[in-house]
């Protein structure tokens, strides 16, 4: 079976590389083909890499507190670039200061992210979620196809 491609990177002016290297290792071990665009990556870098590799998901990390500003509009730009239904995950220290995580999560979900992770989440949680989400997406795709056949 061909491996699923996913794009991994640290967004904005953020240069935290340690977690990025660990996520790369963990998702590769988890069975994914990781396209790691590294730190200091613009929204366009994520989108271009996803188009080039026909990726099923974009995993955005942000550790330095500017994540909220850096991630705004990413979903819309994906849509414009034709990346419909691509999974968007975000995780790390997404905002400046100690804020209630639930409200941070809500803000990111409103911005179009499918999954939002608190600081300190194990990579395993993300891997499990990604497998679930991809299976669901596939099922949905089959269902749509079946529906076409019938109709």
């Amino acid at each position, binding site marked *: 079976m061909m491996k699923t491609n996913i794009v991994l990177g640290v967004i904005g*002016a953020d*240069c935290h*590389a340690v977690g990025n290297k660990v996520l790369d290792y963990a998702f590769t071990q988890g069975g994914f083909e990781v396209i790691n665009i590294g730190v200091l990556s613009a929204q366009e870098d994520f989108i271009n890499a996803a188009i080039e590799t026909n990726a099923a998901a974009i995993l955005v990390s942000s550790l330095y507190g*500017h994540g909220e500003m850096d991630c705004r509009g990413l979903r819309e730009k994906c849509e414009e670039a034709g990346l419909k239904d691509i999974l968007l995950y975000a995780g790390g*220290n997404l*905002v400046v*200061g*100690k804020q209630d995580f639930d409200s941070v999560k809500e803000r990111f979900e409103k911005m179009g992210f499918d999954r939002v992770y608190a600081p300190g989440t194990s990579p395993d949680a993300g891997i499990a979620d990604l497998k679930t989400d991809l299976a669901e997406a596939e099922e949905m795709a089959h269902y749509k196809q079946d529906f076409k056949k019938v109709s």
Partner: protein
Amino acid sequence: MELKNKKLSEESFFQERKEVLTHWVTGKDVDLQEAVDYLKQIPKHKNFALKMRKAKADGITLAQPRAGVALVDEHIKLLQYLQNEGGADLLPNTIDSYTRQNRYQEGQAAIDESMRENRSMLNGFPVVNHGVHNCRKVLDAVELPLQARHGTPDARLLTEIIHAGGWTSNEGGGISYNIPYAKSISLEKTIRHWQYCDRVTGLYEEMGVEINREPFGPLTGTLVPPSMSNAVAIIEGLLAAEQGVKNLTLGYGQCGNLTQDVAAIRALEEQATEYFKEYGYEIDLTTVLHQWMGGFPADEAKSFGVISWGAATAALAGATKVIVKTPHEAMGIPTMEANAQGIRSTKQTLNLLKGQRLSISKDLGMEKELIKAETKCILDKVFELGNGDLAVGAVKAFETGVMDIPFAPSNYNAGKILPARDNNGAVRYLEFGNIPMNKEIKDFNNQLLAERAKLEGREVSFQMVVDDIYAVGKGTLVGRPEIK
């Protein structure tokens, strides 16, 4: 222009300077002679270089937090709080990440949004946007020396502004503010940029104003073997000295094993002194230990345990300064209350340990000699690669992987080496990449890690490294496999 470890000529410096001061509108307010006059009349107790020298003479360890927010008045409030409620000995101005990338336009947008939203949208103080007079406003509002702490590959304009603004210390260096902080900026460029920054400091020194310079010791802050960070610190120290820097603080990030940490600080101080002497520089040398820079526990009580242990290590090592973490570390940028708590627990520990030093033992002596020998293997090769020129040698050393920093984001870093802890928690080389260690050293490192692997009943592997990265956050120093 060809890179060389040689004091910049007056002509080329001032020509470059003209251009640098146009990078952002606030550059035009920098007037060197006016700045020197201003700096000469600031009270002595606000001069960073003097305070560091006195601390070393008195044998005490000073405590300095990290802190910075978007707006001037809020930033002043924060620093005053850390001074009055935290009892900080030295104050920082942590600079935001847009400024670090010279993205002043985005910084300005975030300042505006911070004003509208009434909360800091930046992770630091955008000093270039705020300019010289706001730096002075901050200095006027506090009673302690000020330093800029950032991570800026091209800090030329920033350096001009902060010193003219009365801040008497600057953190950074051509290697330490590139490899851990940038992705695609060449080392040649950043070493050249930091020669400029060091030359600014040198000029002030020549005009009678003492300024402290601090290369950034911990690099990626994650399992960096002491000999690698010491090699970087010594190189940056020598490069700075060539440009006329006189008051220098070399740094090291706590790894967690007391013997190794104390050995690293002492090896750094001794070996740097030897190199300065060999190359004919007269330097006021001091040291700084950074409390644990890796992952923290989410629990505040546990974080206090990590913080206090860092403070104790700094005191027992005899470091001149300790950079303080906070009980909010795991959650990102701390509240000012949490920041002050970190300082208070640190100061309490430092005060209890005043005058106490780790006595030399066989273990400590051996570890110190090992670190020095490893560092020398690296530095010898750097000088060789540069045909005696340290700047050229440093660039070539990173090209060839002779120098290599674990977990660094830079494309100019080979990324071939891997570190891991031995059974006592000391950081060792698991993969040497192209680092030119002698066989004895390699065998010793390998043996220690083989002993750990044996105890844990697994192979030496990257999983061991990953376990070590997350270990402190989970409460231990060595990342042992979970018992199932």
